[in-house]
């Protein structure tokens, strides 16, 4: 129990403290009500645009996480050297001094030997852990910095393509003005996702206003339940539907925003027979066909309205066509009848949806916002985790986004928006400032990013230095090779010059959040030394050598609860809010904030100077608020400098402790930045060809075939392994989905959320189409085995539902815990991830995204009479 503490409580203690939630990366602004040293309520903070004073079910339940008696309170050291799922670590309590001594000794030795042998691994849940973990890794000298699981959790396709096409981490409809949205495997505004809670209010307003919402999803839950129309489809075939819609729009309806395509995309760039840009022989810029001059000229010398989108041209000896002409021709093969065969969506519906979308786009129209005349395209095609969690990750997402670009519905009023792609800063300081800008060939580079490499320009593939091989597979972000069955084979094949030895983990439960636990356990057991900062003893902390008791969000300070805005800040018009997180309660027992521990470790190992430099860079700290030399700052002092640097000397941490946040109005040119940015985006991914060739040049001599169909410049439908399974009896495609109660943190250990989930018909069950189940003689509530072709299986009770595709099998959340340290979570729900293989064969060969659908058979696990 947390007792009152002089620093935090007096005999008349009764305070409402502004801070930030951390039950998911939405990090909504909260007010914590503390009475006599006990937090008795957490409510939303109405002063902040992040949540606007309201919280989701998870957010209001945060207290039950904080006060969990299973929270760790002292550092622990394992006494059993053997590591395995069934091995008891034999925890022994140790002092912080002992713990940090041992960790520092290991890290010193490792840094002298080869710093690349360190993997820094953190959860995405605490957005503010990004900078402390990334800067620690960078300053230490390791390129191995990973965010949560390489499997189900993250979206290599969604983030990559949102970055390239919208300069942001994700996309969302402009809820204020959008009239017609189509969601492909996304729940924006209805359960999880970025700015989840804020979007719930915005999407409800939009639906109430009359925004039509079409939801393409194998299961009718959350977003689909609120949709004007649910479009069930075969799992993982989103690209087939989206490409057929693109075909109808481009070739049948011919409703196209040509001025947008000319001015804001690479549609006019001339493409030669080698599928590459035809370039100016002198300045090497891509050429376009100037219809006025009737000759090829560099794209940056021709008024966009004179650029040809159609036709065949001759440039010297080269026959070429504008990229758009190739796209249009390419789309012709995706007929609605073909799409029906692949996705099961009736051809007539494909045509109707395409017509509705294109018509509602109102191509050519404008609207005045705050005195500024802007393009008005009130349609948005949105995709996220579900549609891009497949072998065809990149094209599934790109195909959905292409709908926006055909009609010019990208970052203009009413359209598909990147989350806060541009910020001109607070009016007093003009900080934080970032804006999308042109990169090589005039294509857009992001103004703000979250780490890894920026999505464009793509780096040059090389022999890998990273254990995840992301420097070879440069379109990837999270990587399966951190844990895969074939990691050693790939490291050997690509001559990785070291092997990882030490893992520092912050809050990730890798064993549950990537793929099958057997594979992940084998990889974790290989580390010579593992440290884990945790709230509880999880399945993953049981593989650690030392576990450090972390502080909860109600005991922590962060200067950047919601920055970068591209992740968890609500998009669209309104305000920017910059809230902090602050401690409402003191640490309990010997709990320490991970931020302070990392700083102390940098001192003990002896690289505080490099850490200070990395933080200056990462946080863009400018004089006089730069961290100096090897000076020892506390985390709170660093927060103070960060805040003063961004908002002026009078607005340091003390000011923010009192006010909680600072807000300012967004300007139209920030929200609808596209017309104001001199950037183009690729409807033709020309750069993917050399990327594929360069990877192949390294991989193929070493025996790894690179399937070039994934590196084509125009999107295609490429089937998942599950689509190719012909084995009798394997009739279902199992897929994971994010439950509204159980997403993005240790919600299963929260007894309030667990109680609600136990009463929910779906949360802990396996959702199966009622008719399909009855056809197999299965009844509602029956205990079943779900088994893959490779023999992996999970057991659970089925929920017969009419709201799921006949071939789909929906399983929610990262459930199925078995750790004794999380007794509430233990045994609840079904561990979907245990069905997933983790190797090269099951990831997208272009961005390494793990395929989340798996072909299964379902059989009764009950004794029948």
């Amino acid at each position, binding site marked *: 129990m*947390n007792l009152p503490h002089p620093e935090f409580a007096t005999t008349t203690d009764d305070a409402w403290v502004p801070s930030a939630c951390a039950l998911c990366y939405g990090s909504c602004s909260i007010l914590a009500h503390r009475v006599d040293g006990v937090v*008795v309520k957490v409510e939303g903070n109405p002063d902040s645009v992040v949540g606007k004073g309201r919280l989701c079910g998870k957010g209001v339940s945060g207290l039950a996480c904080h006060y969990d008696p*299973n929270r760790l309170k002292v550092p622990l050291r394992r006494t059993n050297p053997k590591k395995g799922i069934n091995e008891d670590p034999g925890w022994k309590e140790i002092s912080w001094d002992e713990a940090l001594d041992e960790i520092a000794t290991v890290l010193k030795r490792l840094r002298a030997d080869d710093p690349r042998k360190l993997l820094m691994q953190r959860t995405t849940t605490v957005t503010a852990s990004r900078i402390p973990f990334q800067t620690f890794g960078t300053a230490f000298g390791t390129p191995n910095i990973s965010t949560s699981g390489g499997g189900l959790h993250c979206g290599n396709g969604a983030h990559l393509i949102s970055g390239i096409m919208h300069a942001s981490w994700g996309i969302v409809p402009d809820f204020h003005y959008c009239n017609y949205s189509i969601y492909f495997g996304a729940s924006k505004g209805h359960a999880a996702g970025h700015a989840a809670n804020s979007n719930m209010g915005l999407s*409800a307003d939009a639906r109430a206003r009359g925004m039509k919402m079409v939801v393409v999803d194998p299961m*009718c839950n959350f977003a689909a339940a609120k*949709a004007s129309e649910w479009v069930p489809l075969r799992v993982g075939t989103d690209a087939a539907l989206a490409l057929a819609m693109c075909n109808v729009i481009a070739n049948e309806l011919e409703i196209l925003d040509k001025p947008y395509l000319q001015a804001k995309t690479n549609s006019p760039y001339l493409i030669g027979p080698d599928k590459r840009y035809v370039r100016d022989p002198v300045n090497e810029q891509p050429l376009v066909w100037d219809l006025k001059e009737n000759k090829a000229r560099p794209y940056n010398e021709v008024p966009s309205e004179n650029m040809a989108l159609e036709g065949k041209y001759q440039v010297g000896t080269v026959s070429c066509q504008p990229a758009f002409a190739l796209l249009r021709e390419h789309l012709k093969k995706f007929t609605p009848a073909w799409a029906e065969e692949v996705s099961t969506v009736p051809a007539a519906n494909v045509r109707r949806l395409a017509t509705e979308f294109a018509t509602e786009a109102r191509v050519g129209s404008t609207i005045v916002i705050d005195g500024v005349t802007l393009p008005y395209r009130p349609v948005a095609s949105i995709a996220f985790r579900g549609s891009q969690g497949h072998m065809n990750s990149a094209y599934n997402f790109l195909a959905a986004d292409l709908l926006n670009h055909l009609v010019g519905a990208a970052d203009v009023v009413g359209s598909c928006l990147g989350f806060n792609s541009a910020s001109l800063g607070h009016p007093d300081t003009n900080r934080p400032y970032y804006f999308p800008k042109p990169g090589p060939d005039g294509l857009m580079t992001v103004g703000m990013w979250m780490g890894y490499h920026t999505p464009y320009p793509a780096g040059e593939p090389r022999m890998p230095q990273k254990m995840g091989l992301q420097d070879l597979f440069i379109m990837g972000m999270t990587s399966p090779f951190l844990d895969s069955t074939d990691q050693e084979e790939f490291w050997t094949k690509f001559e990785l010059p070291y092997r990882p030895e030490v893992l520092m983990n912050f809050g990730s439960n890798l064993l549950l959040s990537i793929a099958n636990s057997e594979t992940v356990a084998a990889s974790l057991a290989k580390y010579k030394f593992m440290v884990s900062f945790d709230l509880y003893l999880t399945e993953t902390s049981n593989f650690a050598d030392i576990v450090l008791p972390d502080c909860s969000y109600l005991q922590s300070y962060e200067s950047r609860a919601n920055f970068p805005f591209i992740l968890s800040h609500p998009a669209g018009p309104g305000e920017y809010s910059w809230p902090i997180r602050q401690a409402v309660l003191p640490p309990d027992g010997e709990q320490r904030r991970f931020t302070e521990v990392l700083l102390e470790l940098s001192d003990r190992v002896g690289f505080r100077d490099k850490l200070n430099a990395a933080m200056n860079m990462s946080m863009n700290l400018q004089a006089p608020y730069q961290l100096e030399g090897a000076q020892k700052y506390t985390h709170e002092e660093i927060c103070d400098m960060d805040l003063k640097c961004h908002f002026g000397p009078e607005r340091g941490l003390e000011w923010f402790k009192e006010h909680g946040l600072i807000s300012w109005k967004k300007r139209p040119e920030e929200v609808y930045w596209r017309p104001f940015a001199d950037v183009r985006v690729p409807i033709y991914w020309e750069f993917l060809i050399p990327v594929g060739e360069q990877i192949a040049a390294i991989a193929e001599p070493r025996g790894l075939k690179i399937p070039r169909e994934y590196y084509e410049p125009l999107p295609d439908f490429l089937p998942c392994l599950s689509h190719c399974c012909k084995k009798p009896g394997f009739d279902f495609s199992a897929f994971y989905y994010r439950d509204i109660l159980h997403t993005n943190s240790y919600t299963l250990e929260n007894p309030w959320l667990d109680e609600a989930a136990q009463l929910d*018909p779906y949360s802990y069950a396996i959702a199966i189409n009622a008719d399909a189940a009855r056809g197999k003689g299965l009844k509602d509530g029956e205990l079943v085995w779900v088994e893959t072709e490779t023999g992996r299986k999970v057991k659970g009770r089925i929920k017969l539902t009419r709201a799921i595709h006949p071939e789909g099998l929906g399983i929610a959340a990262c459930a199925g815990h078995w750790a004794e340290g999380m007794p509430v979570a233990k045994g609840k729900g079904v561990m979907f991830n245990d069905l997933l293989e983790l190797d090269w064969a099951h990831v997208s060969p272009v961005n390494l995204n793990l395929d989340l659908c798996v072909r299964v058979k379902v059989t009764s696990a009950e004794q029948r009479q």
Partner: protein
Amino acid sequence: MKWGMVIDLKRCIGCYGCQLSCKAEHGTPPGVFFARVLKCEEGEYPSVRQVFLPVLCNHCEDAPCVDTCPTGASFKWADGTVDVDHDKCVGCRTCMMACPYGQRYYNDGDAHYFPKGTTAYEEKMVVRHQRNVVMKCNFCRDRVQAGKLPACVANCPTTARIFGDLDDPLSEVSRLIKDRGGFPLHPELGTKPSVYYLPP
């Protein structure tokens, strides 16, 4: 003056924010809810959807729970709110049988969620509840008296819950019921609920 609530099923996304913010506000023990979210399905594949139905005490004008209470513990305030005087409740649970909506709970279980015992929060918020009495929603009477909205209304992320005076024809609740065809649950029972739903 008659307090009432409108729940807009078009806005509600079944997020459980009401159920859990109610629990957080009142510190209700395990198994006791003053607000819940039910889920069901309507239609046949593919013209089917999940339906989310938030429920709470309907604060009926003709409340069977009040009529049947042998001790007068269940009673109505002048503003129409149905409440329970726990000092008078003997835990006979007649009211629970009488309530056609199943919105009353008997507090005879643990006052803590974790097997290890009560937390600091529970010591303050859960243990204070009288044991072996019937508990239910009272439209957050303390909050409303203090000029605030009921916790579930104030917190609803989609603004699906609206609270106000049903006797005032110009109040938002009255206008919404009139304009959008608000309906109570099971009107055929004649209990005259003060909680109305707007169609999805």
